[in-house]
């Protein structure tokens, strides 16, 4: 566990940088987290994905790569282009939600 500063505010994160409390997240933190995973700028499409992820998590639903593919927001090819390398991991981290629970 660690405390990080995003948008000038202290935030509790786990060892991998995932927010412990998704309510601590604000939109202006997203670009700073994105930089840490090598994404220099976030566009509208990034924010569509972030909004979708936060909605799903708020509804208590599980996120998975397949789910993203069926989200209607992005297809998997776009998802990889938007968040290169580890899209699900990076997108959830930037969205300020806990690590996807499908991983149990």
């Amino acid at each position, binding site marked *: 566990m660690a405390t990080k500063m995003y948008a000038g505010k202290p935030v509790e994160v786990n*060892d*991998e940088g995932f927010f412990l409390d998704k309510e601590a997240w604000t939109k202006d933190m997203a670009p700073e987290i994105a930089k840490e995973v090598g994404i220099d700028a976030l566009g509208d499409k990034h924010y569509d994905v972030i909004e979708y992820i936060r909605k799903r998590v708020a509804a*208590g*639903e*599980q996120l*998975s*790569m*397949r*789910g993203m*593919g*069926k989200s209607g927001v992005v297809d*998997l*090819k776009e*998802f*990889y282009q938007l968040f*290169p*390398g*580890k*899209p*699900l*991991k990076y997108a959830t981290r930037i969205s300020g939600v806990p*690590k996807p*629970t*499908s*991983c*149990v």
Partner: protein
Amino acid sequence: MRRLLILGAGTAGTIMANKLRKDLPTHAWEITIVDEDREHLYQPGLLFIPFGIYKKEDVLKPKANFLPRGVNRIFEGFQKIEPESNKVILNSGKELHYDLLIIATGTRVAPEETPGLKGELWYKDVFDFYTLEGSLALARKLRDWEGGKLVVNIADMPIKCPVAPLEFAFLADWFFQERGIRDKVEIYYVTPMSGAFTKPKASAILSGILEQKHIHVIGDFFLGEVNNEEKKIVDFGGAEVDFDLLVSVPLHMGQQAIIDSGIGDDFGFVPTDKFTLQARDHENIFVLGDASNIPTSKAGSVVHFASEVLHENILCAIDGRPMTASFDGHANCYIETGFGNAALLDFNYDTEPTTGTFPLPGVGPFTLLSESKANHYGKLIFRWIYWHILLKGKELPVSNKMSLAGKDI
């Protein structure tokens, strides 16, 4: 007469039928259980079949043997649940009305969802071991396989028993040493997770065991397709891993009838309150086991612990009282590591697996997150416990709530 309907006579449905028939008077409650298969498959045993440790007859028994008297049994599939009119339509068109419904329809592997997985190499060089046919076919393959690159791949989470693919890799290492061809076999473990397991402490220790056994790990790999011509798996981002023999854990989905009923998520899992186990959208429907979308492992141990919570909550619901029991996500898994050893994980929604002793603090006999012979015997003895105690809904000396006692926290 009120009617309780249970869909599915696997681990979850069978346990609930046994528990509830005891409590609900036969003059007031009719209980009916529906399943399309007559045989109960001991799923943990599938892991041992490819290595010739268990045979088909070790993992199959008639479902009827485990269902109590006074429960109607219908061995037939169903087409649809209609929650608005409180009824289920069977394949034959017959309608079953219910006052309370328990969905215990489990999950199934769906290799057809991944392009090329069920291609021309299926059951030749590409196998699953999560079905009886798959594990039997793989047993025949492994018996005289001459070696090469073995790739164990998980397509995507969630899957049943998330440690089983790891156990497969560990047992393969042991099996090929016994056969004297370990030097001719490369073992790769290719997973969508970032490491061996998602929970960090367990992942670190399990990664250590993988390394000792010279099993290579490739993480963050989400299976997009299987290329049969070039014998390689390709992830959605374009990364490739070639194989001589692919042991795949295909995508998992809920039953088609759940999807057709419009009560599942995109993958056919029923949105369920993770504490009360009540279906999110329907007060008189409860969901137990792999069929739900609750964020814990899809595993028999979870079903066992959750069944005690569901039992209490259903009795509350029947009496019109607020539900008093809350599930903590407790899971408990033995991990076979080969050479007569096993490790053990015990965790819940909030506490990740850690080291220590189980179930008695300081005594064990089982050791958490480290290898021991006792754990291995625990796993083997468990098959007897499963058939004779667990399915019958009897009490086991292990609390459904995860305990922190004996854990090194």
